[in-house]
């Protein structure tokens, strides 16, 4: 198939529809407005439903209802909107329903700004909603990868009956790149026998619920969820490793930041400094194994983020004190430059803090 040039946000919508998503509930917020706009335009053409909710809280609860009724359903928003959606995400995780949630991240806290940022890492990977839950979080670095991940995300959501988040940033949402739509790997998906579609007098009523008043029952439920999350961690972790062998410095970066880092790595090579990259594609599950592989001859790991430092916590856990973990970041919508990253690397190599 020929490649087509598409804006990130529209590609998100197109990929979802290609993956069989037929329901979308959302509420406007910059910089993701082209996603609901695309869905409003395209979903009716394929017999689907777009509905603009009165708030993000309502939108995610519509997702909950539609998913419980057995549909492939998506919502998208940006940071403050996702904060409101956390209530519903927790309920969806608790009731074990599949759905895809897209966060086109902007800077925060509060109303923050509308430029790209990566300051929602904690929000995405540490819950935000209440309780013992996890959800797969995909952080694409290009529009092609966004499309690929979204198409696969619906299957992952269905297979494990879990919400799945695509953590893009404003850059991914707003830029244009050539893409092609590829079939995701086929997964065995069980029929949704649990869905609330009316009993048709053929079965007992189905109940979608996340309430467990008996603490023992709730503990059992949480332990069962934990086992499911372990399985996801084993099977669904995605990472890109780049020039790790013999690296003096290993950089950890995700999303669009990793593209800037790759640029910096090439510049370092010209200066004779060997730098590698670990790019987590899933932020949860986090690719701990890649960090374990870092050679003892490496001097330090440098985490580069468009935040004041959030993923660095996971990198530190991964390194477990084996070597220094340094940080370079810009935030608030400011984007790191390759030169600034090279300067930071030079300082680390030179033994400066």
């Amino acid at each position, binding site marked *: 198939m020929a490649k087509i040039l598409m804006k990130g946000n529209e590609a998100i919508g197109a990929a979802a529809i290609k993956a069989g998503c037929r*329901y979308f*509930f959302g509420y406007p917020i910059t910089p993701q407005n082209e996603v609901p706009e695309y869905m409003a335009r395209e979903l009716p053409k394929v017999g689907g*439903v777009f*509905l603009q*909710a*009165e*708030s993000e*809280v*309502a*939108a995610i*609860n*519509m*997702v*909950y*209802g*539609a*998913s*419980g*009724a*057995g*549909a492939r*359903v998506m919502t998208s928003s940006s940071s403050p909107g996702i904060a409101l959606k956390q*209530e*519903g995400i927790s*309920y969806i995780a608790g*009731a074990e329903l599949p759905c895809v949630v897209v966060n086109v991240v902007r800077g925060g806290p509060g109303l923050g700004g509308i430029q790209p940022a990566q300051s929602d890492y904690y929000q995405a990977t540490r819950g935000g909603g209440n309780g013992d839950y996890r959800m797969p979080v995909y952080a694409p670095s290009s529009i092609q990868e966004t499309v690929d991940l979204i198409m696969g995300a619906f299957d992952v959501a269905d297979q494990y009956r879990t919400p799945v988040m695509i953590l893009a940033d404003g850059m991914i949402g707003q830029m244009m790149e050539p893409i092609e739509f590829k079939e995701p790997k086929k997964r065995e998906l069980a029929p949704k026998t649990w869905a*609330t*579609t*009316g*009993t*048709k*007098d053929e079965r007992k*009523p*189905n*109940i*979608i*619920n*996340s*309430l467990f008043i008996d603490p023992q029952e709730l503990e059992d439920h949480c332990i069962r969820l934990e086992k499911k999350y372990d399985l996801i961690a084993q099977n669904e972790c995605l990472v890109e490793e780049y020039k790790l062998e013999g690296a003096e410095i290993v950089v950890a970066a995700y999303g669009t930041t990793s593209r800037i880092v790759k640029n910096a790595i090439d510049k370092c090579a010209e200066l004779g400094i060997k730098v590698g990259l670990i790019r987590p594609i899933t932020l949860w599950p986090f690719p701990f194994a890649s960090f374990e592989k870092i050679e003892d001859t490496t001097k330090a790991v440098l985490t580069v983020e468009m935040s004041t430092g959030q993923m660095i916590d996971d990198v530190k856990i991964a390194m477990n004190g084996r070597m220094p973990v340094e940080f370079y970041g810009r935030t608030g919508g400011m984007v790191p430059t390759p030169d600034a990253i090279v300067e930071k690397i030079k300082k680390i190599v030179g033994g400066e803090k």
Partner: protein
Amino acid sequence: MTVAFKKTKGLTDKPLHYCPGCTHGIIHRLVAEVLEELEVLDKTIGVAPVGCSVFAYDYFNCDMQEAAHGRAPAVATGIKRVNPDKVVFTYQGDGDLASIGAAEIVHAAHRGEKITTIFVNNAIYGMTGGQMAPTTLVGQKATTAPYGRDEAHCGKSLKVSEMLATIDGAKFVERVSVNSPANIRKAKKAIKKAFELQLANKGFGIVEVLSTCPTNWGLSPVEAIKWLEANMIPYYPLGNLRDVEEAK
């Protein structure tokens, strides 16, 4: 032998957990009987709220989804959009619907969402122990209004049905009470009409049911009924507030 009265198929065998004298049970039964009589139990999906009726999903003999506090109308919207040919209803208390979920109910009505809402108004938060609700009457004591609701401090009691009746998408709005056999019969009729409206694909329908909370009102079940009659009905008058069929 002819059977004059039997248990409705609309309810499961699970014993209700409500306090003695609480009218939630009567309202459950009315909804269940209507669903049975309309022969739609096998194509109904109910949405349970957060509140004393949180376990409604265990009682109604149809598919059920439990919603977050106040969000039942949004959840029902998602279900109905996926299943436009099914019957979808929400069962919500007054804290759930009139306070935390005020936006969700207004907008479900505003969209003319083809769902039915059973709104149980007992003028108090039952489940959490008798705090003030938007529907608590002026002067009525609640644990968070220990000196009685003060209008100057937190406003008058919210008349939800009157408010919803101003919304075009709301096609059937009626307030009923379950304080007497005659009123129980009227309540059932209204509930049936609201579901029939949905079956005819007309739009949003809501039945507000005045209900008692003997436990948190600190009254015996009989005194609670009397309190409802003396205090609630005068402020929340019974009757139809909007009916598209009648209007024609």
